[in-house]
């Protein structure tokens, strides 16, 4: 598995900024960092899955068509580490900023750049990195708290998911759509 003890402080800070920008604190609950997103990511990097477990990792390696799915050589952990480093240098280079000083507009522009795959970074495919970053931020909010995020189930509370401790057989069934703007 990848050595992840060395995730540099500036990258940790960037992930905190991403987490709070993507999942801001509001009346519905804490922001991403307080929910444990970065703690989740640091643990996620060390999971067998992030190290490529249960994935086919033999070559030859070819890019393939989108319909053929993930064909990168990197394990998820390697992709994430390379991608976060590349995102930081993009912030420092193209935006002449850094993880501490970046304002909301710069963070937004950087995330959009990664999402749309426009970032010119020869070794790290930005779309694939962004897909993993987005997934891990969401997992840090909505995965079971035992994995390090979703602190005290406050992520689940955002949407009203009552938890996975038991079943809901005796929970009332809810309510059907009521008269709305467009009654048939």
């Amino acid at each position, binding site marked *: 598995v990848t050595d992840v003890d060395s995730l540099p402080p500036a990258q940790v800070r960037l992930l905190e900024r991403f987490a709070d*920008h*993507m*999942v*801001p604190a*509001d009346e*519905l609950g804490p922001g991403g960092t307080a929910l444990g997103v970065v703690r989740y990511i640091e643990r996620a990097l060390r*999971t*067998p*899955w992030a190290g490529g*477990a*249960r*994935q*086919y*990792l*033999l070559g*030859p390696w*070819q890019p*393939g*068509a*989108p*319909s*053929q*799915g*993930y*064909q990168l050589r990197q394990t998820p952990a390697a992709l994430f580490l390379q991608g976060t480093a590349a995102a930081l240098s993009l912030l420092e280079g193209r935006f002449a900023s850094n993880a501490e000083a970046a304002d909301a507009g710069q963070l*937004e522009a950087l995330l959009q750049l990664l*999402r749309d795959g426009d970032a010119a970074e020869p070794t790290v495919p930005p779309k694939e990195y962004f897909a993993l970053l*987005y*997934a891990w931020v*969401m*997992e840090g909010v*909505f*995965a*079971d708290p*035992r994995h390090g995020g979703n602190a005290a189930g406050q*992520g*689940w509370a*955002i*949407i*009203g*998911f*009552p938890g*996975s401790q*038991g*079943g*809901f*057989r005796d*929970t*009332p*069934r*809810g*309510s*059907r*759509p*009521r008269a*709305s*703007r*467009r*009654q*048939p």
Partner: protein
Amino acid sequence: MKQLAPVDVAIVGGGWAGGIVAKELGKAGLRLCLFERGPDRRQQTADVGPSLRDELRFAIHHENLQNLARDTVTFRNHRLQTALPMRRIGAFQPGEGVGGSGAHWNGVSLRWGDEDFCLASRYRERYGAQRVDADMQLADWGLRYDELRPFYDRYERTAGVSGWAGNIGGVLQPGGNPFEPVRDGPYPMPPLDEGVAGVWFAERMLQLGLHPFPRPTANASQPYVTPDGVAYRPCAYCGFCDRFDCGFEAKGSPDRACVDVAQRHAGFRLRSLAHVTRVRRRGRSGWVEGVEFIDLATGEPAFQPAEVVVLAAYTLSNVHLLLVSGIGTPYDPLTGRGGVGRGYCYQSRSGSAALFYEHADFRPYRSHGGTGTMVDDFHGDPAFDRSVPGFVGGATLSGGLVLGRPLAARPLPPGTPAWGPQWKRAVAKWYPRTMVIGGSGSMTAHRWNWCDLDPTYRNAVGQPLLRITFDFQENERRISRFMAARIRQMVQVSAPDHCTEPDAWESPWSIAQTQSTHNAGGTPMGTDPSCSVVTPRCQVWDAPNLFVLGASTFAHNSANNPTALVGALAYRGAADILRWLQESPATLLDGVASRPSLPAAASPD
């Protein structure tokens, strides 16, 4: 290679097909060995309850699914492309471990009837000889629903299916599916709750003159004991079915319903973590003499001699094992001849529609694997006129809540940002207020959809991977457009405040997009040995003591989910294997003539 003491029957695969055969042959006192390459999780499932409902471990990291580092497939859309390996789980989710895919399924359990088994002749009678596509490979299965009826009954009682019958002995039952194949009696249990979204959908479908019914599913709606004495507890509505072992002993799963039962019999032996790599032929005769496997705990290869071998692995593994064992004639798309790898099918479908209601609470977490309401009017109804949309087959459509596991489903109206303050408010608002309408379409075998061995990529034991060449063809594209149009109509009468547009799915088919674990074909059943692999009794034409069970024997794919038919064929297969062993016939059951080019099968060398 170490050689083990012989058994009567070696069974490859510990899912529904292998589990049923093991249980039934165990009762008959045979010496059996069941091989499963995954682990035995039964004790863990019984012990740990809540930690089974961990979405990250099972739905994202796929701990219960096939270990692709050990064995996967390669895929391309057409023969001019280079196939590349499926490096991660995507479109389909083959299970691994005792219980197979039946341990982590949703439970949806629908019978296939004569409309499917006689698809080719029914279509010809009604619409003439012309086809949607000259390369479509339509063939009757050589099988009739009435032969399977008692076996469907036994499967449903074993799996513990809850549902509302639509046709008992030819008498239509209000509230059920009027187009379902005739049943001998009600389902083992009444249906589970469809949820308020499902009921809402049902009412809208009645307005359209359609025939909604609660989706039958192998989740117990009440305490239930199978004929083998396996007890199910009532479903807890926890919402963790698909991808998960059931922590409430409520879901019909072959690990409990079959393997536990097989283990009561002294002649039965389970070998988990045992990867069968080859079926060994007896010299150059048509017969087989056992299976080679690797004990994954020790890495040691061994040979298990057997009188009869049953391939009951997942669809793709059944095809792979025949190809790497050199059994049967590989399919050649250029000539259209050969059986192994032929007729690989999946499920046609369109995009689904999400419906958002300002004033509703669907309680999306209060669900079970089958929650929802279906209509079969565009699939099971023989009177439905296919000539206008111009396709063979059809589609079932369903409506109900969005399964509310927090990593799987956070539906948002179109135009909502994917992060930020607006996203957070929207995700909170719409989580309980969204329902979905979607569908499942059939697929016919096609000349250019097939499986063979990959020339480049290898599995962990150095064998070539199975290569899938597959795309949606014209028939599937037409079904998809039809589905999208019907869904739009259903959305219209359901009057949501916002909705997403259901797009038709055109080519190319993608192995990366999550769809269904309904892979079928590749060792098709048929009456013509030149273009099928097994007889209508699932016996390999070329190897009379080799039976293949599972969806790989399907000659096409129905809109209906595959498992009920897999179960029924396994029950019939178990009876056939017994009969065949007892009668010791020279070749094949039912006096079917073996392939003429075979050496005399009764005198194996």
